[in-house]
């Protein structure tokens, strides 16, 4: 019989479990179904609850926190509309494999299924976009469920786990016991260690390759395997490209780095992919934004693929050597196996010569004539001023691609964006989460006037908790990426991509209790940005009026192969692309 002292109500059990998991922040929004939990939060001081102004904002903040720190993000929302608002945030984390535990309140058990006030089928609505979910109907199961949820969220291929808790369950009492033993779920056993035979085969193939290529993705960042991968790449003298999600996994200023690949990747990265004879894919999933036309993808290459998720292997492309396992563990093994090697790197010198030739094309060059600020220049200048010593979050659109192309990321977990789902509104709340998780870092949210308006209200959250970040808004008055596609594929019919009646962002920032700076002329860009960077403890909205006609280059139109690149000012869009060509 447990003593009185050890009996807690469901809400208190949640708090104790979160403490046991080392949770620092809970991002959330209260409501009727979670009032017991909010009462329990009120009565303790170890966990800080961050009140967002929209559940989507809470989820993105928890997500940004998780991406910046590598820890599990925690969010708490009420039932019904609270949960439906959170779905976009859950789906965003799911698409990018981010570890999160989301608590949602549910109507009391007795009312479930009765169309009660603020009732939705939370488990049902989120099912396609969670790694796993629970509806806890018995308070005695609560602690155990939370422990399992944290384990599932953070192990294997990470992802969001939902725990739906009826109001009565958070009120009922039960003895509290949080097991110290590792979680054991018989049906859930991720393969961590790669098959040693396959690893040896892969290394043999890599050493024999004449034109090897390392293509690394978000999995390397998520699994904290950058160091090992970098070491291995240097030992084998391989050219390295990162996906959008993988930026920072390999230092951007390293000689072997050829830039990002894919739709808006560099000429050298895509050409190297197209011509390589052995493709070494590490924690990357052959996304359609990377591969383009699958029939033209790496036509000459044997493919080695490391992924912790077996369903990612051979999903889109045929793989010659699949290795199922954690990137970290496989990389460690490969580093160990190559420790005493004397690898003859001269054999791939011709390959490097060829890559240097491609590099000369300068595919990221842009025209700076005219009296408008070029968006690329903004990112380059910010990079120069900060020395890359910052965390950069982004929203989704042209600014996201420019940030990926022109800001050099030398370390993992410094580049935070919604790569998989492409969620506008992600950047700013994610910046708040990242700053809370890593308060010593300077955090910049690179956004556009379209994206920022989707989560602008989170400026109040930043005010309440004093979370200073810089909002770098590339304001061109257009939904830029939509406008770019309409220019290329819809004969310049700019249907609804023009942002009319924009607010005065400076006044808005001031209304929220922050500062605002507007930059309109190219000659004032650097000095004003320097001022902004120096405003360390302030949230600053930097409204930068940029050239609205600028497009993101290089570009591989969808359906194209890696070698079908369009470069700025060199190849104009060819008319081979029929009108009304679809986006994906």
């Amino acid at each position, binding site marked *: 019989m447990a003593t009185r002292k050890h009996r807690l109500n469901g809400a208190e059990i949640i708090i104790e479990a979160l403490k046991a998991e080392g949770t620092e922040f809970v991002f959330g929004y209260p409501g009727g179904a979670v009032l017991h939990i909010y009462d329990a939060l009120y009565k303790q001081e170890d966990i800080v609850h961050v009140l967002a102004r929209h559940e989507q904002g809470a989820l993105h903040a928890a997500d940004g926190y998780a991406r910046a720190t590598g820890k599990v993000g925690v969010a708490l929302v009420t039932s019904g509309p609270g949960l439906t608002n959170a779905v976009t945030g859950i789906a965003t984390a799911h698409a990018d494999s981010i570890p999160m535990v989301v608590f949602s309140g549910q109507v009391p058990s007795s009312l479930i299924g009765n169309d009660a006030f603020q009732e939705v089928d939370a*488990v*049902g609505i989120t*099912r*396609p976009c969670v*790694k*796993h*979910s629970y*509806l806890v109907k018995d308070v005695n199961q609560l602690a155990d469920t939370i422990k399992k949820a944290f384990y*599932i969220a953070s192990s294997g291929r990470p992802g969001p786990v939902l725990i739906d808790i009826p109001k009565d369950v958070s009120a009922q009492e039960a003895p509290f016991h949080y097991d110290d033993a590792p979680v054991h*779920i*018989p*049906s*859930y056993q991720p393969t961590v260690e790669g098959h040693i035979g396959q690893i040896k085969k892969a290394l043999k193939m890599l050493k024999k390759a004449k034109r090897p290529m390392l293509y690394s993705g978000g999995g390397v960042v998520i699994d904290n395997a950058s160091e090992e991968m970098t070491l291995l790449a240097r030992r084998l003298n391989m050219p390295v490209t990162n996906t959008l999600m993988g930026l920072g996994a390999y230092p951007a200023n390293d000689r072997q780095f050829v830039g990002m690949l894919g739709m808006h990747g560099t000429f050298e990265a895509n050409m190297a992919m197209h011509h390589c004879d052995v493709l070494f894919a590490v924690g990357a999933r052959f996304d359609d934004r990377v591969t383009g036309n699958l029939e033209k993808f790496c036509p000459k290459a044997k493919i080695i693929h490391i992924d912790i*998720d*077996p*369903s990612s292997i*051979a*999903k889109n492309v045929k793989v010659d050597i699949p290795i199922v396992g954690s990137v970290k563990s496989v990389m460690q093994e490969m580093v160990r196996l190559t420790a005493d090697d004397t690898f003859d790197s001269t054999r791939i010198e011709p390959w490097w010569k060829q890559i240097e030739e491609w590099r000369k094309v300068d595919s990221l060059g842009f025209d700076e004539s005219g009296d408008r600020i070029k968006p690329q220049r903004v990112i380059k200048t910010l990079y120069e001023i900060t020395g890359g010593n910052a965390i950069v979050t982004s929203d989704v659109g042209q600014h996201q691609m420019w940030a990926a192309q022109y800001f050099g990321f030398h370390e993992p977990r410094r580049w935070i964006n919604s790569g998989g789902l492409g969620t506008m509104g992600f950047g700013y709340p994610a910046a708040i989460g990242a700053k809370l998780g890593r308060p010593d870092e300077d955090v910049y949210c690179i956004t556009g006037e379209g994206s920022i308006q989707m989560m602008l209200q989170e400026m109040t959250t930043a005010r309440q908790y004093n979370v200073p970040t810089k909002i770098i808004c590339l304001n061109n008055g257009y939904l830029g990426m939509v406008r770019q596609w309409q220019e290329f594929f819809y004969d310049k019919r700019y249907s609804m991509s023009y942002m009319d009646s924009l607010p005065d962002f400076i006044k808005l920032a001031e209304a929220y209790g922050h500062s605002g700076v507007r930059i309109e002329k190219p000659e004032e860009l650097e000095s004003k940005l320097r001022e902004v960077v120096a405003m360390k403890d302030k949230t600053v909205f930097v409204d930068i009026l940029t050239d609205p006609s600028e497009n993101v280059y290089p570009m591989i139109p969808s359906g194209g192969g890696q070698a079908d690149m369009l470069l700025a000012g060199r190849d104009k869009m060819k008319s081979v692309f029929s009108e009304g060509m679809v986006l994906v």
Partner: protein
Amino acid sequence: MMTRRHVVSVLMANEAGSLSRVVGLFSARGFNIDSLNVAPTQTPSVSRLTLVTFCDDQLIEQINKQLNKLVDVIKLVEIEEHELIDREMMMVKIIADAESRGNYMQLADTFRAKVVDICPTNLVVELTGSPRKLDAFIAMIEPENIRELARTGLTGVAVTGSGKCLEL
């Protein structure tokens, strides 16, 4: 690639939401499940699910991987046609008066089916066998005379010695 019938046998947790996760994998991709049969095993906390779908070999590999990824799924195996012992049960309510009843009873007898209910206007036949056999029986009855038809969907196990034993 060639589309053909695939039979997947799955052991999974017998819990709320487990089945919808399996079904959701299919609906999310716009695939049809041809038949689905699920019930608890000798261990009440574990269910066996037998799933039939028509697709090509690459797709079934992806389906199997995705199924395996579900936290509820303990293990699964795809059973090839030649190693499969499959059965399905069916009940057919047939419109039959005194005049036609005899013919249907004779038909049932030929198919080794059982007549389990009779009234002046209908009779109900129970039949177990391979899906093909069930189809053949239905083909012998005029469609307008079939009042109700209920099939369980395919269930089955692999033959002993096939190496495809899905033991707990």
